[in-house]
């Protein structure tokens, strides 16, 4: 396994109390594999990724438990300077908003080249040549001329390509993409997702794709982990989950997508709101919104039951959900 997160727990101390953002998350990604982490805002999907990358804001954040095994080493036990060598070189991250993730007062060539100067000790001139190569590789037209341009001179899609180029620069083994196409228009989104998938194959990287878009997941993922209130509620190979979800939350998400044969009818809507992370309901966190909830759901936190070989569901009634 390339990356294995085991029972990760993260909380944030705020003035109003302790927000439990991640409550025992475990997932694994292999080289060449795409794991989609699906969840709504506040589900803990980005916080988990930040903990893996080691870019969590501490304080207010605090990792209170768990392990992050990357190529066999526990990253949480590394010293900060050792961690810095992993970050960027062995794992890299692509963020949602390319404009605010790039430095506005440095040319893109300088920002791309910086990776080689810092990590590889290259001269500025060689780094510039590498930057042009990278921009070519992510198919930015006229890379040689544009290497001196600043981020604001590029379109949204081109900026996201630059972010991808930067993540790929040192050929990391793992890429974490946090909503990489959410800020882009659909036609550009398709270009960028295609590029990312192609580069992943070329470099045989592990990819963690964080998203809320069930469509994007269906397009590129091998496996899915669905998160709710800081926990994984279901994980499965991508085909299984769309065919027959084994958790009522996953099913609710899938059912609330408008479908052709439902036109003119009321859309299925999950009732209520996601829980406040400072006050997560006892038992199953989803129970107040769940149409299948029973007494046991209000008292006992469901473990991740084994549904089949690679499938897990954190629902006491996963059998009923699956066969309903």
């Amino acid at each position: 396994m390339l990356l294995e997160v085991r029972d990760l727990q993260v909380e944030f101390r705020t003035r109003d109390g302790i927000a439990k953002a991640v409550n025992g998350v475990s997932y694994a990604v292999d080289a060449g594999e795409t794991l989609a982490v699906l969840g709504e805002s506040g589900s803990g999907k980005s916080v988990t990724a930040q903990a893996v990358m080691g870019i969590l804001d501490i304080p207010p954040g605090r990792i209170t438990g768990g392990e992050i095994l990357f190529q066999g080493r526990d990253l949480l036990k590394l010293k900060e300077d050792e961690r810095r060598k992993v970050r960027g070189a062995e794992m890299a991250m692509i963020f949602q908003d390319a404009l605010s993730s790039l430095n506005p007062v440095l040319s893109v060539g300088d920002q791309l080249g910086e990776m080689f100067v810092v990590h590889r000790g290259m001269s500025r001139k060689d780094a510039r040549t590498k930057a042009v190569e990278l921009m070519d590789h992510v198919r930015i037209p006229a890379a040689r001329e544009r290497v001196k341009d600043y981020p604001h001179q590029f379109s949204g899609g081109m900026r996201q390509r630059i972010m991808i180029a930067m993540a790929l620069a040192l050929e990391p083994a793992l890429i974490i993409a946090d909503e990489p196409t959410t800020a882009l228009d659909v036609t550009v989104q398709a270009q960028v997702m295609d590029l990312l998938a192609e580069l992943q194959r070329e470099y045989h990287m592990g990819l963690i794709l964080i998203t809320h878009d069930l469509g994007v997941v269906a397009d590129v993922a091998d496996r899915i982990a669905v998160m709710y209130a800081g926990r994984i509620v279901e994980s499965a190979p991508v085909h299984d989950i769309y065919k027959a979800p084994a958790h009522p939350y996953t099913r609710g998400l899938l059912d609330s997508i408008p479908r052709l044969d439902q036109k003119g009818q009321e859309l299925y809507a999950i009732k209520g709101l996601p829980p406040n992370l400072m006050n997560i309901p006892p038992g199953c966190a989803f129970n107040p919104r769940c149409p299948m909830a029973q007494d046991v759901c209000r008292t006992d936190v469901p473990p991740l039951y084994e549904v089949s070989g690679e499938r897990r569901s954190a629902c006491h009634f996963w059998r009923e959900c699956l066969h309903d």
Partner: protein
Amino acid sequence: MTEPILEVSGLVKHYPLTQGILFKKQVGSVKAVDGVDFALRRGETLGIVGESGCGKSTVAKMLVNLERPTEGRIRYKGEDITKLSGKALRTVRRNIQMVFQDPYTSLNPRMTVGDIIGEPFEIHPEVAPKGDRRARVRELLDVVGLNPEYINRYPHQFSGGQRQRIGIARGLALRPEVIVADEPVSALDVSVQAQVINLLDRLQAEFELSYLFIAHDLSIVRHISDRVGVMYLGRIVEIGRDAEIYDHPTHPYTQALLSAVPVPDPEAREQRDRIILAGDVPSPTNIPSGCRFRTRCWKAQERCTREVPLLAVPEEFRRVSGPAAHDSACHFAEEKRVVPPGQRPPGPTDDLGKEGP
């Protein structure tokens, strides 16, 4: 077919680009909206889709008179409202209300919910006399599915979906006939989007509203709309009934847009025929000659650089009366089916291979 309640013709909005501080010289213009025509019928929902910068929000602003058009007419029940001012304008504005995209910034954080929803009554006291207002606001809260007891709370005490309900209640306060909704659910979480869409549907039936529904999410637009218009760079390139646009698109941009939408079904991955457009949308300051889509179009020919294609039923479909015979602004319009969003992908026995009528 009922008569149109709102009719837009030749609508244009150009923003001047100037240079110099003291002596401003116009050096060009941003052609945000560049000749838009459509009609909204009573009780109907017209969806407008398009990517960022296509001018869909500018159209919305002109309809509610937040922007004055550079050219063109907007007729509300036959009367041109673009030249109105004073009392006549106020009356029209009362009848065309807007719901905004971002429920976090479109509600004043220092006002209570009661004051926000009741504010329209200050300008239009004829709708609710002073003593009656709190009661009206409570009623509105109830209508949009919020507890009337929340009347004294502030916006920050609500979630995104609840705030959008407050925005909708404010839009309904004056009992308008037309609601212009600009991306009303795109800031909301998936599980909450469906709740708000259902609410909008219910309110339409209850109050006989006409909606202009602007969004970039094609499956949501299809669900709620009777007709759909596709915008590209300031113009409508294709418009028709929802099934005509989604199942029988004839404009290459519509086809590319539909094929690019990720379908929430992994089985569709292999079956899909995706059209990946090259490049980005051109700048609205410098619109290509002829057809504005030609720089990204795989069918473009010499004719497309010379002649602006008009929005009409293309010649080749004029004699047939099938679903492909709808307005499409392309010289080389032809039908092409793509797996539309919102459709479970067809099995091997489906009629994907068959030609349209």
